[in-house]
Structures are given as C-alpha cells and as structure tokens.
C-alpha cells in the first residue's frame, strides 16, 4: 500500500503539486512568521538595552562609613564596605564583563579657585580611573589625559576658572583644613554623560541635574585624600557637607551572554543583581538599569508576538483554506480511483491505509517545502542576520510548531474529507457524482451573516469593555488588548462570503440569454455557463478574494503605519532634525546660521519658557514664525477654526500675537482677538508682564509631543526678556531619507559641533528611540514577508482554481473540441470564466481589504501620537498584487489551454 501510494503521488504530479502547494504555503507562512517573530523579539532585546549606558550601579548605602562607626559603639559592628575588594568580587561573578569605581561629590559655589579666579557656581567632582573612560565613552576626553595625581576639567569649569592643561586649580574639600591643589592634565566633554548626572537618591532616582562645572580625580586621590577629609567633616559637630557623596561600582555585563529573549534575559540580569547584593547584604543599593530596560522589552515582545500572530493568522488560515480547496477539487478524481480500487477488491481498511499514507506523505513533503520556503523568504527579505539573531532553541521550537501545523493542515484538508467519503457506500457515492453540485454549506447556513454578526458582537463587546482604548503601562510602553483584532478577522471572512453571495445573487438575476438565439459561440456558451453554474466559481472566488483582501489590508495598514510613524517622528522632533546645543556650553552669536550645513534647506530656532497666566504656570514655545513654517510640518488639523498657514501668518503680521492651546483657551475663555496678559522672566530672573493678543488656537504643536500651552514670537519674547539663546534648532533637510539625515547629522557634529557640543536627533533616531514601545514594531518587515506569501497564495489560488476547472470540466472541453470548437474559443471560454473570477476577486478583495485596513488602523490608533487622518495607499504594492493575480490567471489559462490541446479526444470520450 505504501508503494502504491508513492507511485500514485508520482503518477499524478499535478495533483500531488496541487495538494502540496497549499500545505507548503501554510507552513511557509507560519514558519516565516514564527522565525520573524523570534528574530524580532531578539532584536527588540538588543534595541531595548542599546541605550542603557551603565548596566548596573551598585551604590554604597553608607558611603562615608559613618553609620557603621556609630553602630560599632552600640551593637554588632558592621565593617564599612571595602570597595576595592568588592570590585574584584563583583568582577569575578559570571556574566560580568567589567566593574569600575565611581565617586561623586557635589560642592557649592566658591569651592574651586585658580589663581585669582573663583568658580561662582556649584562644582561636581567625579572620581574614576582611566579604565572608566574606556568602558564608558559617554565622557569624551578632548585634550590631555587623566592620571592619578592630577585633575580633568569640563570645558565650562576650565573657562570659568581661566585655566588650561598645565595649569592648576585648588579645591576646598569639607573636612580638609587647606585647599587641595590639583594640576590640570585634561579637558573632557561631559555633554553626553547624562547617566553621570542622574540622581541616585531613592526619592528622585533618575532625575537629571545638569552641572556644567566638573572636575575629575583618580580613585586613588579620592580614597587617600578626599574621603578621609569627608569622613572627618562628617564626624565633626557641625559638618559643612550638606549632600553625602556617592560611592558606587558601575557594572557592565557581558551582553553577548544574555539570552536573546527578553524574558530569559531578565531572569539572568536579576540573578546577577541579587548576586551583587548578596556580597555585602544591606550595604548596597543596586540600580539595575538593564533589567528595567528588559522589563519594558519583555512586555512589548509578548505583545509583539500576539500582534504579529494576529496579523499573520489570516495568511495561515488562508493557506490552510487553499489547501482544503485544492483537496476538494481533487476529491472527485480520488473518489473515482477509490471506487476502482474497491471494484478490484480493496477493503475499507486498505483504502484507509492508502489515505493515511497519502496524507502523511503530502504533509511531510508540504511541510519540508514550506519550511524551505519560510527560510528562503526570510533570507531573501532580511538576510542571514534574521536567522542568526534568535536563540537556536527558539528556532527549533518554531520549526517543530511549523511541522505540526503542516501535518494538521494536511489532516484537515485531505484526511478528514477522504475518510468521510470512505464511509459512504459505493452506490451513494456514484449517485453523488452524477448529481448537480449541492448548494455550498456556507451559503445554506448563511455563514457570511454569522461571521459578520460575530464580528459586530466581538467589536461591540470590545468597545464597551474599553478594548480600543490604550492602557498605559510602564514608561512609554503601550498595552493593547489583543482580542480586539478578532473583529477584523471575523469581518474579513464574513464580508468576503457576503460579497460572493451578492455576486451569485446578481448573476442569478441577470436575464437569461434569448431563448430563440444562441448568440456567438464563445459569448453564448460563456454567459450560459456563468449564469447557470456560478456556484462552481464561488470556491475559487472566495479563496482569491480572501487572499487579495488580506494582501490589500496588509499593504494599506503597513503603509499607513509607516507613514504615520514617520509623521509621529517628525511631530516629535519638530522637523527632520532637531539640534540641541549643550547647555554646558555658550552659543556664540549667529550660531544658528552655522547649522546650515550641506543638505539643510532651512533652520529655525526654538526656545521654551515658563509663563505665568493668571496664577497658572504654563509652558510656552518661542518660535520665529517665518522660519518655523519652513521647517515644521503643520497640518491644518493641528489648529482649530483656522488653517496652519493663517495661524503662523497671524504671528508674522503681529509679533505680539500668540497662539493658545485649546485647553488653555477653554480654561481662560480666550477667544481669537482677545488680549492675553502673561508674566515672563528676564535673563536675570526678573518678572516682566507682557501683553499678547490671541491669533489662533491649536491642538498640537510640532516639537512638543507632550503638549505646549502657548506659542509666541521670538521677537516679542526677546524684546520683553532680553533672552536670546535658542533651546534647540529645527532643521529641514532637502532630502529626508535616513541616509541623508545621517549625513547631515555627521556634518553637524564635525562642523558646528566642534565649537558647541550638540545633541542631534533625526526622525530616524526618534523612531528608533521608541524601541521599547509597540510603535517600534517592524511591521514593514512583517508586511513584506506576508506580501510575498499573499502574492504567492493569490497566484496559487488562481492556478489551483483553473487547474480544478480543468479537472472538473475536461470532458466538456474535449466534447466541445470533438464537435469542432476551435482551440482559440476553448481558451477564450476558460479565460472568460477565470477572468470573471479574477475581476470579481480583485474588486471584492480590494473593498474588503480596505475595510479591514480601516479597522486595523482604528484599532491601532493608540500607537500613534497623532491619530491617522487617512489611509495611505501604496499604489506599487497593490499593482504588484493585482499583477500577480492577473499574471497567474494568464499563465494558468495558457497552461490549461495547452493541456486541453494535448488531451486525447479519443481516450476521454471513451471514459465513463
């Protein structure tokens, strides 16, 4: 029986191919999505931890050992932490790659002097060794080098003290009677060293405190000179040091050894943190930045998997349906063969055995081909990294699941219908073969309406339960109730079936051909065939419409998502690039014009200020309306009752004009034209009242994703406050692609960035910065992956439909040829039926797909800062999909025509 099955598969290559193709596509898509999700989760982990500068900060809870000393007098003595020893112990822990000591001491204004100059601002002292600089490039040495006996200064401190390398500064250390003289050996830039300025205090942990004046000493100097003085000060009756110093170990983990899956990685990082804490119980507070980042990614990875699976599920279901469809087309031929086997004496057990072998063989062949297809597609779209990023065990699990899905699909598509057929009597079967095809079950049972009703119920319940509203979770992460995606899926099937039902009803209502006139050969035959057996086209129409609808919805949704993501990024940044000069460095006059590097088409300065409106403190943006309109995207939807250009023109025409947020306008009942009296502060901090006039209301303002209350002109603000420094600059690029933006960013850093340290953000970095939220999902990747399979499925669906038509109607075609019908007419007939299915499927698929895309966009609106106002249409992708269906139709019709031409008229006319 096994050899019979194998021979049967080889003897009927077209039938075998049709059976296998659906399974292969289902497994290919399933495995492709599974591999992609594995890879995405791994990438998500890498992206989540990439911005973490310091993995863990182990802070000594009693940095001066004063509590230990106090405790020694009363209870069991707790020895102070020996940081050097602890450093070695932590470094020896598995998974730790480096450990560096860091000391921090904040001193008040006047603590540092150089010659006759005294620093009249607070000073921060850092203590670390040169290895710290190697491990943490956030501190960039501009000139000189750090050594054990000297000091390194920030440019601001050096400037304020009027000292350079080779000079000397003196620092007043609390507890030390004399000033501490330190030769200056290096100047370093701290403008990118935000983590060093983040608060370690439990109450304000992570809060950034910018201190421009920095002095760095070695840990040796810290241990032997500074710490003893501080201890002496702490032990004094009236200590002069108000803020305790920080003593910490900055721990860097071996990130390559972290699991790619964030959930597993978190377990490992938490284990390392606990190991560090256990070394000196109760004496360390470990700030675990890595676990915090991974926790965000962990939740997102799970949601991403769910979202990917839901977006991918229709494709898998579709491929399975295609497999079932192919199986049903082959059923007639297989029944005939089984009847022949019965006639030759084969019993039910043997027939069942043949069916089982056939199912297993098709399942295995289809699954292997599908896995190869999944691998191949992933390689083609994303390169080798897509397969090497995820852990091997994750991949093996995905392979196992894909194979199981393949066998399940085959069992559902081939085994169950075959087994059902076997239980029937031969006589009953032959009657069935002669009978007119029954009305399909979905049509009889009104499954289309049932699916649509279910979609409406699920959608309503989800809406009432708040499923369409975003749920804020930690940080910027967004949680989305995933079952909201069920409604579009049910709607997809229901609307497609309903569309086909309407087509059938429409065709049935078409007036019959004139009884007294047959009409042209092809036209007369085709119209009668279409009208009288339109149901025969329904299955093919459903399969192809579902595929097209899925492809269209995916293309529309992914393109809209990408467009809106970029719009969000532009809104967040304010333009293509945002350049923020370091607050630690002074901006020279005309600094803005130096930012006009190659590729930049416009620059606009923007500042922020706090304004007092009545007794409310309100945030105000100060813009130059003329240049701002050149750099920012200002959709009219941002403004209320006025267009964007009218609003900005209002500011140009009246420099004392002001734009007010809708919220502020409602709170203070401000109408356009009303005076708005606010209080600002001058550069010296002196309050100054300013009278503005409201010229417009807005809902959103570019560059301020968190919202802003007022937008005033730069000229009015400067006149009132004499504050001229811009907080940041918005730059419009001539070309806004990623590569051009990166080039501009590099040019800015190497040009004006040499004078004033700059933070350059682009729309690309804004998108990437969202890596810990769902908004950063690589839906484009998933879209590309599924588009490949949608095109394949649409084409395969069409080919299977035409092949099925040929199988079912070959006797008819042969009869027509025998009666003298020219081959061109036979082909035209075939093309007419296939073309009808193609056109209806494309139209129906486009309509249903657009509806699904609208629903998807609606559901995922919470992912966007600015709600999408319209659907973006990727004309090229849609044309490719339509082209694939039309091309497959043409190719399959040509192939079928050739097959019909080659069919032996004599043999087939003798059949039955």
């Amino acid at each position: 029986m096994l050899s019979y099955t194998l021979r049967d598969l080889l003897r009927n290559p077209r039938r075998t191919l049709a059976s296998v193709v659906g399974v292969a596509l289902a497994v290919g898509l399933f495995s492709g999505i599974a591999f992609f999700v594995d890879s995405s989760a791994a990438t998500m982990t890498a992206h989540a931890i990439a911005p973490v500068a310091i993995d863990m900060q182990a802070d000594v809870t009693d940095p001066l050992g004063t509590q230990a000393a106090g405790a020694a007098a009363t209870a069991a003595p707790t020895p102070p932490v020996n940081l050097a020893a602890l450093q070695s112990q932590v470094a020896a822990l598995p998974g730790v790659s480096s450990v560096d000591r860091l000391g921090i001491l904040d001193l008040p204004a006047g603590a540092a002097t150089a010659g006759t100059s005294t620093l009249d601002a607070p000073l921060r002292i850092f203590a670390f060794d040169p290895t710290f600089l190697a491990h943490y490039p956030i501190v960039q040495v501009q000139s000189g080098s750090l050594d054990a006996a000297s000091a390194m200064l920030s440019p601001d401190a050096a400037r304020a003290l009027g000292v350079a390398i080779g000079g000397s500064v003196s620092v007043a250390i609390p507890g030390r009677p004399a000033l501490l003289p330190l030769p200056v050996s290096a100047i370093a830039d701290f403008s990118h060293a935000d983590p060093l300025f983040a608060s370690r205090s439990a109450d304000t942990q992570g809060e950034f405190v910018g201190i421009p004046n920095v002095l760095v000493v070695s840990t040796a100097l810290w241990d032997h000179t500074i710490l003893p003085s501080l201890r002496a000060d702490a032990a004094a009756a009236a200590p002069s040091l108000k803020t305790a110093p920080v003593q910490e170990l900055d721990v860097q983990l071996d990130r390559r050894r972290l699991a790619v899956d964030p959930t597993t990685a978190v377990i490992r990082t938490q284990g390392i943190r606990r190991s560090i804490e256990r070394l000196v119980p109760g004496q360390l507070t470990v700030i675990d930045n890595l676990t915090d980042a991974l926790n965000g990614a962990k939740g997102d990875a799970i949601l991403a998997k769910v979202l990917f699976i839901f977006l991918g599920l229709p494709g898998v279901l579709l491929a399975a349906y295609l497999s079932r469809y192919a199986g049903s087309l082959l059923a007639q031929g297989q029944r005939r063969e089984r009847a022949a086997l019965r006639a030759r004496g084969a019993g039910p057990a043997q027939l069942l055995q043949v069916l089982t072998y056939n199912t297993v063989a098709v399942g295995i062949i289809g699954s292997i081909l599908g896995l190869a297809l999944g691998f191949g597609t992933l390689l083609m779209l994303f390169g080798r990294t897509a397969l090497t990023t995820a852990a091997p065990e994750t991949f093996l699990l995905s392979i196992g699941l894909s194979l199981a899905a393949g066998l399940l699909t085959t069992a559902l598509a081939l085994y169950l219908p075959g087994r059902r057929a076997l239980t029937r009597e031969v006589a009953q079967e032959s009657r069935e073969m002669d009978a007119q095809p029954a009305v399909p079950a979905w049509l009889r049972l009104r499954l289309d309406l049932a699916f649509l009703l279910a979609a409406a119920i699920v959608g309503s319940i989800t809406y009432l339960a708040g499923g369409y509203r975003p749920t804020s979770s930690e940080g910027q992460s967004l949680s989305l109730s995933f079952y909201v995606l069920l409604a579009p899926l049910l709607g997809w099937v229901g609307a497609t079936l309903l569309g086909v039902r309407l087509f059938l009803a429409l065709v049935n209502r078409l007036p019959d051909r004139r009884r007294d006139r047959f009409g042209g050969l092809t036209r007369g035959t085709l119209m009668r065939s279409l009208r009288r057996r339109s149901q025969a086209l329904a299955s093919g129409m459903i399969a192809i419409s579902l595929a097209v609808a899925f492809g269209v919805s995916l293309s529309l949704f992914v393109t809209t998502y990408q467009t809106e993501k970029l719009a969000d990024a532009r809104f967040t940044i304010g333009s293509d690039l945002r350049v923020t000069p370091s607050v630690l460095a002074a901006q020279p006059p005309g600094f803005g014009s130096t930012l006009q590097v190659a590729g930049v088409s416009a620059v606009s300065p923007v500042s922020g200020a706090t304004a007092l409106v009545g007794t409310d403190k309100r945030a105000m943006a100060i813009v130059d309306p003329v240049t701002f309109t050149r750099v920012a995207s200002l959709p009219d939807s941002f403004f209320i009752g006025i267009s964007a250009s009218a609003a900005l023109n209002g500011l140009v025409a009246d420099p004392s004009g002001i734009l007010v947020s809708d919220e502020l306008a409602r709170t203070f009942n401000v109408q356009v034209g009303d005076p708005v009296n606010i209080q600002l502060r001058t550069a010296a901090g002196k309050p100054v009242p300013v009278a503005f006039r409201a010229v417009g209301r807005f809902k959103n303002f570019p560059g301020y994703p968190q919202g802003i209350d007022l937008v005033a002109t730069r000229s009015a603000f400067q006149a009132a406050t004499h504050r001229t420094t811009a907080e940041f600059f918005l730059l419009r690029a001539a070309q806004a692609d990623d590569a051009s933006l990166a080039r501009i960013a590099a040019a800015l850093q190497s040009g004006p960035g040499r004078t004033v340290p700059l933070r350059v953000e682009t729309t690309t970095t804004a998108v990437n910065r969202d890596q810990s939220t769902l908004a950063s999902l690589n839906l484009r990747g998933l879209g590309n992956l599924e588009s490949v399979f949608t095109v394949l499925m649409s084409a395969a669906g069409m080919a299977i439909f035409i092949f099925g038509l040929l199988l079912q109607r070959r006797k008819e075609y042969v009869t027509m040829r025998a009666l003298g019908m020219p081959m061109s007419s036979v082909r035209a007939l075939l093309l007419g039926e296939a073309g009808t299915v193609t056109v209806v499927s494309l139209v129906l698929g486009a309509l249903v797909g657009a509806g699904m895309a609208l629903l998807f966009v609606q559901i995922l609106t919470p992912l966007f800062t600015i709600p999408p106002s319209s659907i973006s249409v990727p004309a090229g992708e849609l044309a490719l999909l339509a082209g694939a269906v039309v091309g497959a139709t043409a190719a399959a019709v040509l192939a079928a025509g050739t097959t019909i031409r080659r069919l032996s008229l004599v043999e087939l006319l003798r059949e039955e």
Partner: protein
Amino acid sequence: MSQAEAIRLAGVTRHYRTPAGLVRAVDGIDLEIDAGATVAVVGPSGCGKSTLLSLLGGLDRPTSGQLWVGKQNLATLSDPARATYRRTHVGFIFQSYDLLPFLTAVENVAFQLSLQGELDGHDHCLELLDSLGLGDHADKLPDQLSGGQRQRVGIARALAHRPALILADEPTGELDSETSRSVMDLLLEAQRHLGATLVVVSHDVGVAQRLQRVLTLRDGRLVADSRSDPKGQPVA
C-alpha cells in the same frame, strides 16, 4: 446541407505505444465507402472499431496510410483544419451522449450550429427536436432528461448542421431495446433525409442488420465486409 462524400482508406494504421508494448488498434485497413451509404462496424471489444470511427471523424490521425473523405486527406490535415472538418462535415453521436450539462436541449443543438457561425438557427433546432419527439423538453437541462431523451438530443445535435458524414459510437449502448429501436429509426430516417453517409459502431447485431453494409474487425484488421439489400437481406 453538405453533400454526402465517399470515404476511402488505403493502408490505414493506428498504433499506440503503451507500457505493455505496441498496440495495433487499426492495422492496415483498405476500404471504400460510397457516399450516402449506411455502414455498421462490428467486432469484439478492443478490435479497433472506435479507433476507426475516430479516424473517420478526424478526432485522431492515422499512424500511416491515406484516409480520404471526399477530396480531403485527413491523414495530412493540421489540427485546426481537422477541427474545421469536424464541425462542417461530421455529426457525432457518442455512447454517453456527452451533452454540455449547462445548456438546455435546444441550446445543445444550437451550439453545433453556432460552431459554424449560424446564430439564428433556433427554429430549425426546435423543429429538429420536435421531429425527434422532444418538443416539450427543449428547455430542459440534460440532467432532467432520461437516457433515451438525451440520446435523441445527441442525434439532433449531430444532424443540426446537416453533415455529410454521421458517425455514431454505440448509439444504443446504454439504452433498452425498445428505445434502441426507436433511436435507430430516427437515425436512419435522418440519414435518408439528409442523404449523408452513416457509420455506426455497435455490438448490437440488431442494429448492424439494419444497415446496408457490415464491416467486421478483429485485432485491428478488417476480416469481413458484408452487404445487404435495402430490405436487409445479405447480398455478399
């Protein structure tokens, strides 16, 4: 109406290659059939009767030899030319009727006319069906007709375009004896009316005896050729 044409076969063979070896379905037949004659082809199963009919109908091409129908040598015709020959010269009647299932009885008949570009032959088709006793069934689909009725529609389709040659492959094979007799009556009457040449392949001796000439085949060869007078009495 096409003019009845004489048929001439000279050394016609039709061989097939199968996994079991070479099959000589028709093996060197020399034969002449007069225009307007009625001929039965008989013989055991697999003797080459249907193959011979297929060759005469231009459904198949001889492996070797010459096959003339009127002035056309079917052995040398291209596929499109054979299709033209079939739709203009030949009326086929198949054992399993082979009606197009989505066309009504009258449309099946009209289909044959439309093959020749005749678009307004509806009345002619109805008359034909009426003459075959199917006037009340003209608008029925094939699966609403009995076997005998379907075969009569098949006959009507074969006659609709007034062919020069009517080829019937076991036309009564699936019918009871009474219906068979009725079908043969109709066929012979139509042949007389059209003056066409009629070749019938049959196992049924009763059917064969009603035709002027009976050709007996065995293993692809013509082993007997008997003629009868118009009353059915053998003359050679």
